[in-house]
């Protein structure tokens, strides 16, 4: 037996037990609306039905999924985009009555044979970005929504009081019920809901209930996340995964929804009725065996989850430390995965959906909280994943215990760890420079490393503290930048350059200063700076595999499309390349993991009975990717100016950063920017910083030029009607007209021109001012 393993039959968490009085809680529920539906059969992955709940009107409707909708939008995130397009207007904002929170699954979702087949994709108009934000999440909700009878659900309108929306797949009924007594914070609420809605008082029954919840933090910030629960019968805890990005939980609470609950009867491994279940099982078993044999030698996901990245990122100067000023730090080894491994519970199957043997969802059980309303309680902490540990290093929290405390409260308060951590790191840097101080921060001493101040900030946020800083800070970096500028504190360019947000959304946790392609991977995105579209740092910076602009543009076409495909189907991205076939390095394109791409081709054909090839999957994604970009344009964003990124993601903002990596930056001025060594040697640090600044800003614009060209967009980043028609949207007249109008307006405003400064030795992607019309 391996040291530290505990046989699961003997396992106890040691958590504080919550008394759950189901009769009293339920006794206070009033049913506001009920809709009975006829339960059909899922055929080849689709129910062919979506659910629409309007809380303002108190209505519940079913809507059909047509062949046309499947052909154009595939499922999952694509269905979410279609629902939003049909439901909102360009002026819809996060708190508008007509804003929709869509929760979708996808044709592959709920399959149990292939690891990572349980994702929901959630979409809404984000409070951070004012455009559609999509965020994917594990847990059981997506599969259960499908097993209960729906390929997607939309929640529109607002309730007058706290409600739960119950999708009861046993009674074939959807209900809106008031829920006045339940907790709002997730770690208690998700457990209450599991007990209230389980068909029987057994662990197995509770495992057939999943809820979407948020928490008190979501009510007072733009960082609200959705927690999707998956009841763990061994720990006897409703565990949760997060749809973190973009404030989806903020929208949930703005609609006065405490929870969305899906309840299902007993189900099987062929609930989706795949066309070819034998192939499903064969492909799945092949990956299980790969994970069994290779994971411990590759990413070690089964032992430590994504936390294995911390030591790698630190080694390559990519781990964000002290608000991305540095990519490594002497104390970072205190957050390496072995430190968390010591704390994680071993042995228990840790997949966030059945059959996921990659099992990256680690927990620390019986963790004693030090602060806040639950101080002294022993709880299960879900995580931390890499991103959350990266928030720790970004804020200078070098003790694993504080990262766990931060992680736990983010989850239960319904806060995105990434936005919360990245934003606090920015406030800390501003504090260090005196641009913020104790007085300006409502008496919080927000210096790097002050864990108690971080926790106090979060607890005050959850309580709805109305101090001036506490009113603006939880709205995120973009609003705080504007607030600081309005106050006239500090240097405006310094503030803009240090705050790691783009489109209003906070960055996730990678330092991108030395990888131009990854700067594009964050900036040239649909929803904002999140690494789920492309992760190109090693290809670009370490292996130098994509040296030219067209190379980088090709990568910024292929990988965002490929990664989008997971969200159309309800798949998790991790089993694609966080374990690789033993012979992957010998293949033509190891970065694409061709063996696993073939798995997905085989799986989708086995599920739907289609005969798709790998290029067809990219086309499916291109349809949705372009549709989402077009919706951004429709809502007034989605142009070159909106793909702006802060200079901290491109290079050194402060002298300290430059000097700390002086040789690297001096070399870059010579080898990349074409200056002579003597010239560089004769310059002061501020002069060298400015030269690098100008060079790298121009490089980013040239990258945008190449990427827009490759994606079939205008110089200003607008998808063209020609592109949309080629993707099969020829009959979407409203969309095509809107795009042509925007392009004409851009041309009139002189915006349809390349953004980079090209000298005689360089060519822009095209000389033709209307290059896109030929496509």
């Amino acid at each position: 037996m391996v040291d530290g393993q505990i046989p699961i039959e003997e396992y106890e968490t040691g958590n504080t037990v919550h008394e759950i009085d189901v009769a009293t809680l339920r006794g206070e529920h009033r049913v506001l609306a009920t809709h009975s539906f006829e339960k059909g059969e899922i055929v080849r992955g689709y129910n062919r039905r979506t659910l629409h709940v309007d809380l303002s009107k108190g209505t519940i409707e079913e809507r059909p999924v047509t062949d046309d909708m499947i052909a154009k939008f595939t499922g999952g995130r694509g269905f979410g985009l279609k629902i939003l397009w049909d439901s909102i207007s360009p002026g819809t904002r996060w708190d508008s009555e007509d804003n929709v929170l869509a929760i979708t699954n996808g044709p592959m979702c709920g399959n149990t044979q292939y690891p990572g087949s349980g994702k929901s994709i959630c979409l809404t108009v984000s409070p951070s970005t004012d455009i559609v934000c999509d965020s994917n999440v594990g847990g059981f909700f997506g599969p259960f929504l499908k097993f209960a009878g729906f390929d997607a659900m939309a929640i529109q309108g607002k309730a007058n009081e706290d409600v739960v929306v119950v999708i009861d797949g046993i009674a074939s009924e959807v209900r809106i019920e008031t829920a006045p007594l339940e907790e709002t914070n997730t770690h208690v609420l998700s457990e209450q809901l599991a007990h209230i809605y389980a068909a029987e008082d057994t662990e197995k029954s509770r495992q057939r209930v999943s809820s979407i919840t948020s928490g008190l933090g979501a009510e007072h910030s733009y960082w609200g996340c959705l927690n999707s629960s998956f009841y763990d019968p061994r720990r006897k805890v409703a565990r949760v995964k997060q749809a973190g990005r973009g404030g989806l939980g903020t929208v949930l609470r703005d609609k006065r929804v405490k929870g969305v609950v899906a309840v299902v009867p007993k189900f099987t491994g062929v609930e989706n009725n795949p066309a070819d279940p034998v192939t499903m099982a064969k492909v799945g078993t092949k990956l299980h065996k790969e994970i069994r044999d290779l994971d411990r030698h590759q990413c070690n996901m089964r032992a430590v989850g994504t936390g294995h990245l911390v030591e790698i990122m630190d080694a390559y100067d990519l781990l964000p430390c002290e608000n991305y000023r540095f990519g490594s730090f002497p104390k970072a080894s205190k957050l390496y995965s072995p430190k968390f491994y010591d704390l994680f519970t071993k042995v228990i199957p840790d997949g966030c959906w059945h059959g996921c043997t990659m099992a990256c969802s680690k927990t620390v059980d019986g963790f004693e909280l030090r602060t806040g309303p639950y101080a002294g309680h022993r709880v299960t902490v879900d995580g931390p994943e890499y991103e959350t540990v990266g928030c720790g290093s970004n804020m200078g929290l070098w003790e694993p215990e504080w990262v766990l405390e931060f992680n736990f409260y983010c989850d239960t308060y319904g806060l995105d760890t990434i936005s919360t951590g990245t934003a606090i790191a920015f406030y800390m840097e501003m504090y260090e420079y005196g641009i913020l101080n104790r007085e300006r921060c409502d008496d919080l001493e927000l210096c790097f490393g002050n864990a108690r101040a971080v926790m106090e900030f979060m607890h005050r946020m959850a309580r709805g503290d109305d101090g001036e800083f506490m009113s603006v800070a939880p709205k995120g970096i973009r609003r705080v930048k504007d607030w600081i500028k309005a106050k006239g504190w500090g240097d405006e360019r310094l503030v803009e350059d240090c705050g790691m947000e783009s489109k209003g959304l906070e960055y996730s946790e990678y330092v991108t200063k030395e990888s131009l392609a990854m700067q594009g991977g964050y900036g040239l995105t649909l929803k904002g700076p999140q690494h789920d579209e492309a992760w190109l740092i090693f290809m670009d910076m370490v292996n130098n595999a994509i040296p030219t602009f067209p190379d980088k543009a090709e990568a910024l076409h292929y990988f965002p499309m490929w990664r989008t495909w997971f969200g159309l189907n309800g798949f998790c991205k991790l089993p694609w390349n966080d374990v690789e076939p033993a012979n992957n390095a010998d293949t033509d394109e190891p970065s694409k993991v061709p063996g696993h791409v073939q798995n997905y081709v085989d799986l989708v054909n086995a599920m739907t009975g289609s005969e798709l090839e790998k290029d067809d999957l990219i086309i499916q994604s291109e349809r949705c990717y372009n549709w989402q970009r077009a919706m951004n344009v429709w809502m007034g964003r989605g142009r070159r100016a909106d793909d702006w990124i802060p200079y901290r993601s491109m290079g050194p903002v402060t002298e300290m950063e430059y000097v700390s990596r002086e040789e690297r930056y001096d070399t870059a001025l010579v080898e990349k920017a074409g200056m002579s060594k003597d010239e560089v040697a004769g310059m002061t640090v501020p002069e060298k910083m400015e030269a690098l600044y100008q060079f790298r800003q121009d490089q980013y614009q040239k990258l945008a030029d190449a990427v827009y060209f490759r994606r079939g967009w205008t110089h200003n980043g607008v998808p063209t009607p020609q592109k949309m028609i080629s993707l099969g949207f020829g009959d979407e007249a409203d969309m095509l007209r809107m795009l042509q109008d925007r392009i004409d307006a851009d041309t009139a405003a002189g915006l349809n021109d390349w953004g980079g400064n090209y000298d005689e030795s360089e060519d822009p992607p095209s000389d033709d001012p209307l290059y896109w019309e030929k496509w």
Partner: protein
Amino acid sequence: MSKVKIVRFHPEKCDGCRDCESACSQVQFKTTVGGNQSAIRISGSPGEYRMHVCDQRGLCLDMCPVGALERRPNGAVTLDASTCIGCQACVGFCPIGAVRKWEGRMEPFKCISCGACVRACPNEALYMEEIDIDAVRELVYHNLGA
């Protein structure tokens, strides 16, 4: 110390008739076809027969996300097909390939130490041996960077 009876093999007594497989099929699937519907498999050729069956080490117990696999009071690890959700994690992770999948059903199956194969063998090539569970017990690997 808990005990379990597991199937053992005298290769020199086996004549390859595969009555054991038929008997197992009868227990598992109410058929006598044997082969890929049997939890015990005989392979090889006369004089070199090999027997392959679960030794009840129980690593699969830790893999099941829904608790469909249980160690029964008699020590045998059994799979409750009505609880199983067909994920194949036990199939993929069994280090000796003893949790089996038949193409006609999504839920896998395995040896339950019932002894039907032993009773069916005309040559007494199979027998049940009682062993300590701790002598075979295996948990899922989980050590960091093994």
